[in-house]
């Protein structure tokens, strides 16, 4: 286990060292986050009303509702996208086959490549929330940070499986992943990100109820804005963890088979 942790740390340190060579990137991302937060603030000022707040799960402002939905989508995208983006970069830079001839196992290579993108996404969320709280009065006073962290972690675990499936698709078909874009598109529409699912037609509400993103977002809003503790978010957490328990092992099996197929076909390094 110590050896595995050390290997995971190596991947994190590698990506951190690379990121440090782009010295101004963090500054520009922080500025981009500021513009993003300002955009949501002014859109919310334009549309917010007491009637609208009555339809929102925590009766919060539309600014808080929509911003949490937006940054959660960003996090979801990181969870799903990190694996195949890391894999594509490794393939295109020629490092993939050199990674595969080391003594480190494939699951560790895969997990290690996603750690930094996850950490960077978490940091980006922090920057968004910090701008929102400092400049635009985002209500952070009652947040239950432990519950927030638990929901984020469960979200990562739950959707990493989709990310690994996405990487498997990339291995086999080399470009794009319609399933990933379909899922992200569906979650944007029927996940309760920018509007409550209650305004959707019945059949889309059914889709939303089957979509774990809906549960994750509810839990996130409850913990961050409503200050809900574990007793209030345990159900969505359980759904996310069940999703992870099924999808993670399944995705590793699929990835192993996809890799075997590319090794059989000799297409590992093909673009």
């Amino acid at each position, binding site marked *: 286990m110590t050896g595995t942790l050390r*290997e995971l740390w190596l991947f994190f340190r590698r990506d951190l060292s690379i990121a440090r060579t782009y010295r101004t990137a963090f500054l520009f991302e922080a500025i981009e986050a500021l513009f993003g937060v300002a955009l949501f603030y002014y859109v919310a000022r334009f549309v917010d009303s007491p009637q609208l707040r009555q339809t929102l799960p925590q009766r919060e402002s539309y600014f808080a509702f929509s911003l949490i939905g937006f940054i959660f989508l960003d996090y979801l995208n990181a969870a799903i996208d990190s694996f195949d983006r890391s894999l594509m970069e490794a393939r295109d830079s020629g490092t993939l086959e050199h990674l595969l001839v080391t003594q480190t196992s494939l699951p560790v290579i895969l997990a290690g490549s996603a750690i930094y993108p996850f950490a960077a996404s978490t940091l980006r969320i922090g920057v968004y929330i910090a701008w929102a709280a400092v400049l635009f009065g985002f209500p952070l006073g009652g947040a239950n940070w432990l519950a927030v962290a638990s929901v984020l972690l469960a979200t990562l675990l739950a959707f990493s499986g989709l990310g690994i499936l996405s990487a498997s698709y990339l291995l086999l078909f080399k470009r794009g992943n319609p399933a990933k874009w379909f899922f992200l598109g569906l979650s944007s529409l029927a996940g309760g990100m920018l509007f409550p699912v209650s305004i959707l037609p019945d059949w889309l509400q059914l889709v939303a109820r089957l979509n774990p993103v809906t549960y994750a977002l509810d839990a996130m809003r409850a913990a961050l804005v409503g200050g809900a503790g574990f007793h209030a978010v345990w159900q969505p957490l359980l759904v996310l963890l069940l999703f992870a328990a099924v999808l993670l092992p399944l995705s590793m099996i699929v990835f192993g088979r996809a890799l075997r197929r590319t090794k059989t076909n000799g297409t590992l390094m093909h673009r």
Partner: protein
Amino acid sequence: MNRIRFGTRVVPISCAFCSSSRLSSGRRHAISSQVPDAAISVEALQKSFPPARSGWRTLLQPFEKPTVFALGGITFEVAPCEAVALLGANGAGKSTLLRILATLILPTNGRARIAGYDAVRDPRAVRRHLGYHAGSDAGFYARLTCRENLRFFAGLNQISGAAAAQRITQLAEQFHLGESLDRQVRTLSSGTLQRLSLARALLHQPRVLLLDEPTRSLDAIGAAEFRRFLKTEILRRGETTLLFASHALSEIELLADRIAVIDAGRLLACGSLAELKQVTGAASLEDAFLRLTGRSHSVAAEGAPE
């Protein structure tokens, strides 16, 4: 009957291949037994792309690309600390063979072993004993320094921090990388990159080194320096078994104890330069290669090595 040394044994070789016509499979060398302590052992190795289908999947065959046979049942062994060159035209199967040994491609049939470990059944053990270097500039993190790259790959090969630092310093000295060690890889010349790549392949002190056209991306001077470097720093030390693919005949003559001539996925001959010349009646390696591959009447053929 001529004899060519194969592994640590002497095996018979049909002198019929002295003729200019291409060898039929029935006239290839018959090598059956294994050398117990062979560093590399390849037995009846076959590879086809994409794999031939069986059962109901044959129904899909008409809709798939035609199967290409890259290796057609190759058998040979390399003794510890021996240097063997794979010589063949483009598409002969050299890289496929090396990539199977490096566990990057799965064979269709047959066996490939490194240090006694099967490349399919025990790939992790195989990787513990091999270093792999594909002769391109790619394969490093361009914005990291040489030291950071080497430290990363050392860690993935289970070399801990202090030992890795010591090994990197040792290799940097040996491979003349000292001044480049703290420079970003993107600033390095092709020659330095090749040496860095070789240093990476040797980080974990593998018993077997696989090189796929190691001087492919170097100019004439860089290639000559790299060959000299391989000769003095790797081969003369007598600790590493070397199997390398190359089109450069001068490189093969300088480095190889034995030369395996491959054509269309078949092993046509394997022996020392002198033996190949003797059995083909050729005056040079180029001539021997052309005779073995049946191209001696069309020397200008596009597949002939340089």
